[in-house]
């Protein structure tokens, strides 16, 4: 988007005219929703469906008459899986486009790249992705599951199901994997088990032969794998190719977030235990309706995944707060969100936790089955207890950091 002199003059003239005549000029003006997502590049498997979900949510709201009687206009930028573009586009969204809210960011690095820009400019920010927890900032609202919400549910389930006492952890070697591995160790201990080894892998490691042999030499009862990205997907292939699936059960905190279970064959994926807020196989009226709408908009519903649904629920939450506040002004919207506003999304009820600006949400225990995620059990209303342990925005509204949570 660019502004040339003619547009600028025209716009100024219109504004002046409106001001002079005293028209309710804002009535028909669109509300601007800013979005920054990696819709291309190596993270597009995450970003594209998130973008689709955001647009679907906006279309829903507009079809129902918009917000405060005004339509929503999407101002979206594709950050191309390039972290440098995030700060550039965030500046653009706040300065030039002057959007009313920003939804977006996928990797934690991208979130941290734009969080301060949006905070300084007073632009409300929604980060709608599963992440490692600990961000404490009054300007941001986060509705993805955090390790405590997910791992606290997954570890006892997986350990009880297979009667495991010893657990081997394979994690991605960056903040998400490191922090999640700590939480897994904690809950393995709390459930009377023992972590026999923790191995970390940079994101480009794709050869797990020696690891698979090592795992066998320690013979754990269960392997939990918070591995991330396309290269790490090879682990699940090689595990199956070595015939290990029948011997040692697997659980993961990440497999399926970007629909990876649809890339693996049924044989490779079957039986892997996971826990998320959303599954396409979730049998609820809300999900059926959501999938129907998605299919109507995009042809088929196969692209839907965990963080696309988070993004959808994030937009719904923001819209509910704007309605409640009756205003787009940041502080009144934040105040409305802090009343503990709830929305019904495809993944269940999502409630804002006023103290941390994270979400209280349902976590579903699932098993991968024939390239789908079959829901075994639903744990309703899980609190983000990891972030709650360090962050209290009611007591310290000026807090502005990401805590590393001591476990």
């Amino acid at each position, binding site marked *: 988007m660019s502004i040339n002199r003619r547009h600028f003059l025209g716009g100024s003239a219109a504004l002046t005219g409106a001001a002079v005549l005293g028209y309710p000029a804002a009535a028909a003006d669109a509300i601007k929703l800013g979005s920054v997502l990696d819709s*291309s*590049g*190596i993270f*597009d*498997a995450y970003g594209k469906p998130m973008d689709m979900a955001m647009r679907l949510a906006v279309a829903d709201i507009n079809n129902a008459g918009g917000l405060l009687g005004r339509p929503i206009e999407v101002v979206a930028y594709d950050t191309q899986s390039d972290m440098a573009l995030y700060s550039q586009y965030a500046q653009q969204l706040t300065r030039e486009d002057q959007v009313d809210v920003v939804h977006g960011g996928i990797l934690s690095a991208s979130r941290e790249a734009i969080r301060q820009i949006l905070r300084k400019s007073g632009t409300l920010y929604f980060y709608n992705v599963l992440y490692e927890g600990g961000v404490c900032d009054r300007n941001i609202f986060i509705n993805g599951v955090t390790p405590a919400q997910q791992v606290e549910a997954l570890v006892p389930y997986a350990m009880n199901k297979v009667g495991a006492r010893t657990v081997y952890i394979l994690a991605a*070697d960056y903040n998400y994997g490191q922090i999640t591995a700590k939480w897994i160790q904690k809950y393995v201990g709390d459930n009377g088990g023992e972590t026999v080894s923790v*191995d*970390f*892998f*940079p994101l*480009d*490691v*794709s*050869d*797990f*032969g*020696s*690891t*698979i*042999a*090592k795992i*066998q*030499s320690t013979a754990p009862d269960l392997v939990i794998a918070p591995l991330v*990205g*396309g*290269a790490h*997907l*090879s682990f699940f*292939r*090689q595990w*199956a*190719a*070595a*015939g*290990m699936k029948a*011997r040692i059960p697997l659980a993961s905190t990440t497999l399926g977030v970007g629909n*990876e279970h649809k*890339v693996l*064959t049924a*044989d*490779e994926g079957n039986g892997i235990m996971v826990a998320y807020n959303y599954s396409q196989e979730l049998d609820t009226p809300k999900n059926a309706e959501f999938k129907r709408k998605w299919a109507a908009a995009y042809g088929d519903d196969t692209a839907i995944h965990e963080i696309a649904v988070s993004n959808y629920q994030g937009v719904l939450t923001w819209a509910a707060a704007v309605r409640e506040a009756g205003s787009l002004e940041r502080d009144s919207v934040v105040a409305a969100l802090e009343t503990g506003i709830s929305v019904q999304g495809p993944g269940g009820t999502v409630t804002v936790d006023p103290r941390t600006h994270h979400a209280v949400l349902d976590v579903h225990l699932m098993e991968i089955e024939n390239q789908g995620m079959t829901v075994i059990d639903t744990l309703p209303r899980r609190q983000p207890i990891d972030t709650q342990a360090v962050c209290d925005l009611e007591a310290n509204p000026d807090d502005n950091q990401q805590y590393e949570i001591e476990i």
Partner: protein
Amino acid sequence: MDFILVIVVEVLYAIGALVLISAGLAVIFGMMRVINLAHGEFMMLGGYATITAVDLGVNVFLAMLVLAPAVVGVLGLVVERLVIRHLYGRLIDTMLATWGLSLLFVGIVTMVFGNTTTGISTPIPGFALGDYQVNGYNFFIVLVAAALLFLMLAVLRSTRSGLIARGTMQHADMAASLGYNPDRIYMLTFACGSALSGLAGAVLAPLVGLVPTSGGAYIAKAFITVIAGGPALIAGLASSAGVFGLINQIFSFAVSPVVGEVALLVAAVVLLRLLPRGITDRLFRESL
């Protein structure tokens, strides 16, 4: 005891994988002195050719061992005609041109196949080695690598075309004066090298997922292996792959796969300090 056997299998596999990764480059860079920075992308294309063929219902072994090398070989032929043949003897220019090619291939594949990880399952089941389960596909890779080395040796040493190719690479003018057309021989050799790269990408595809940028993971290892191998094509390839594969796996088992990769690179630096012109500059001097 079983664990030692498993380590032996993994070491053989690592060596085999290095041989495969580097074979195409050994021909194109080792023999022809063309710095092919698009080597990784040739491999990636071999992988995509295999996956596409398998999705269309072609037998996976046929796709890997015949189709993918053929597709990438033809592509190499086209690339040689359009780009490389104008640049023989101009090292820096070929680097730039092939780097551009690699970007082009990544872009095209991204447009056609998208930027998400794809892959196929390994076609060979795992089997038990004592108390351990081993990936049966590892043996396949070792077999293919061994067969490849043997085949390259046989072609270069015992066939007339091998002799002509070697002669042309050493003295193109001399070969020309004997009535051979160096232009044609360069073209065919480049195509053969490309086909080998395609084969490597195809055979490794079921083990690791594939994205358009997968090639980048191989390029450094391939160059290191070929350069450390030195002047003898096959003995160099086998010996440097042997050294690096062994070191990589020992450290992978002892510490972690990451340290294994680091150890490989450290070994390469040390080796090139001690033998700046490669292993076969000192050892196995008379071999091919």
